[in-house]
């Protein structure tokens, strides 16, 4: 199978501290990459650096065989990002926030009703984000991922703030995404059990 997302000889510093060096990974269609490690080991930093929010000291991340820094636009149109800061405006309601997203990236608004239904957000779609619970806000962020036509999902601690049903939901949608040929990179301190091809990077 061909590698879609790969990292070569990656080294990352935060301040004076070297978080890791000579790190390698490769990911093909339908595969999940789990970044593991204790608190402070640099899981989030690695994830942010792969996405392009941080700069690696050395090394190259490639997407479809081309270094990301040479075709970052192609990479970003295939990328959707989820973290504990959900990236929605508290004063706007769910629909307004998701509509804004559709101006930024390729997304399928025809599925909007189905997605909201599945995430149990239908009844509250016109409430401002700020009155929602942290778990509900997480679900709206999941809606962004489901609506986006993006091959690569990057998730930072996707289970935080979610109840049992929510956690099952995250696993279900991730599994479906992988089955449809998507890729997923997850940073998590708790073990993730998703059947399918899983690769792991463990940071110390």
């Amino acid at each position, binding site marked *: 199978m061909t590698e879609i997302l790969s990292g070569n000889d990656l080294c990352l510093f935060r301040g004076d501290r070297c978080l890791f060096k000579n790190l390698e990974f490769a990911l093909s269609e339908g595969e999940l990459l789990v970044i593991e490690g204790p608190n402070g080991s640099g899981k989030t930093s690695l994830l942010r650096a792969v996405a392009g929010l941080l700069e690696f000291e050395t090394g190259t991340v490639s997407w479809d065989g081309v270094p990301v820094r040479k075709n970052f636009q192609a990479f970003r149109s295939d990328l959707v990002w989820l973290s504990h800061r959900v990236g929605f405006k508290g004063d706007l309601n769910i629909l307004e926030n998701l509509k804004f997203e559709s*101006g930024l990236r390729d997304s*399928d608004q025809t599925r909007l009703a189905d997605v909201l239904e599945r995430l149990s957000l239908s009844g509250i779609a016109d409430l401002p984000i700020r009155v929602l619970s942290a778990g509900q806000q997480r679900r709206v962020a999941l809606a962004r991922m489901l609506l986006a036509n993006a091959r690569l999902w990057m998730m930072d601690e996707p289970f935080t703030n979610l109840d049992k049903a929510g956690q099952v939901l995250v696993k279900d949608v991730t599994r479906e995404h992988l089955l449809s040929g998507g890729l997923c990179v997850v940073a998590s301190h708790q073990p993730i059990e998703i059947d399918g091809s899983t690769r792991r990077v463990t940071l110390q």
Partner: protein
Amino acid sequence: MTTASGNHPGIWSGLVAVIRRDVLLAWKRPGDVLNPLFFFAMISTLFPLAIGPSAEQLQFSGPGVVWVAALLAALLSLNSLFLSDHEDGSLDQLILSPQPLPLLALAKALAHWLTTGLPLVLVSPLMAITFQMPAGTISIMMLTLVFGTVSLSLLGSIGAALTVGLHRGSALLSLVILPLAMPILIFGARTVSLAAADDAVAAGIYFLAAYCMLALTLAPFATAAALRISNE
């Protein structure tokens, strides 16, 4: 790298989306729009109280006062330009979107102008009248303020992007941006003074327009670079 196929949003759609979102946010929180206006009015009131009520003196200092007040009011509001985006994670989403970041930065600055600069321009005649400014001068003043506030929103967006997420951000923003904003103040205020003295004003207006164009072209790139650095 073509993104035109399918239902990929076009190159301007991110810009439009950001402007629409920020204006909508301002609409939902009118305080954010009104506070700089009150601040503007307050500063304009300070000067007559400090200088004295003599009509001649007020007429003489009016252009400078209105311009200083507009500059400070615009700076006050610039501090929060990227603050909420940084705190709620929207900035991550903007940086990681396939839309070119300089265009999104331009959109943020334009939205700031629509919600701060434009209202300032619109209420400035009220201040001018209290400074006994004649009607002909007022229209020139509004024209200089249009170019000046657009330039300030753009220049200030660089400073706001550089200082977002820093503890002493607001004081620092003024320290960093004020010296760079001097040409806008000088040309803006002097042009209005010249207009009041029935002198030629074309040079000042051309300069402000040229500065505005330069800021429109270059500032978004600096803001985008600064945002990437500050958001690390």
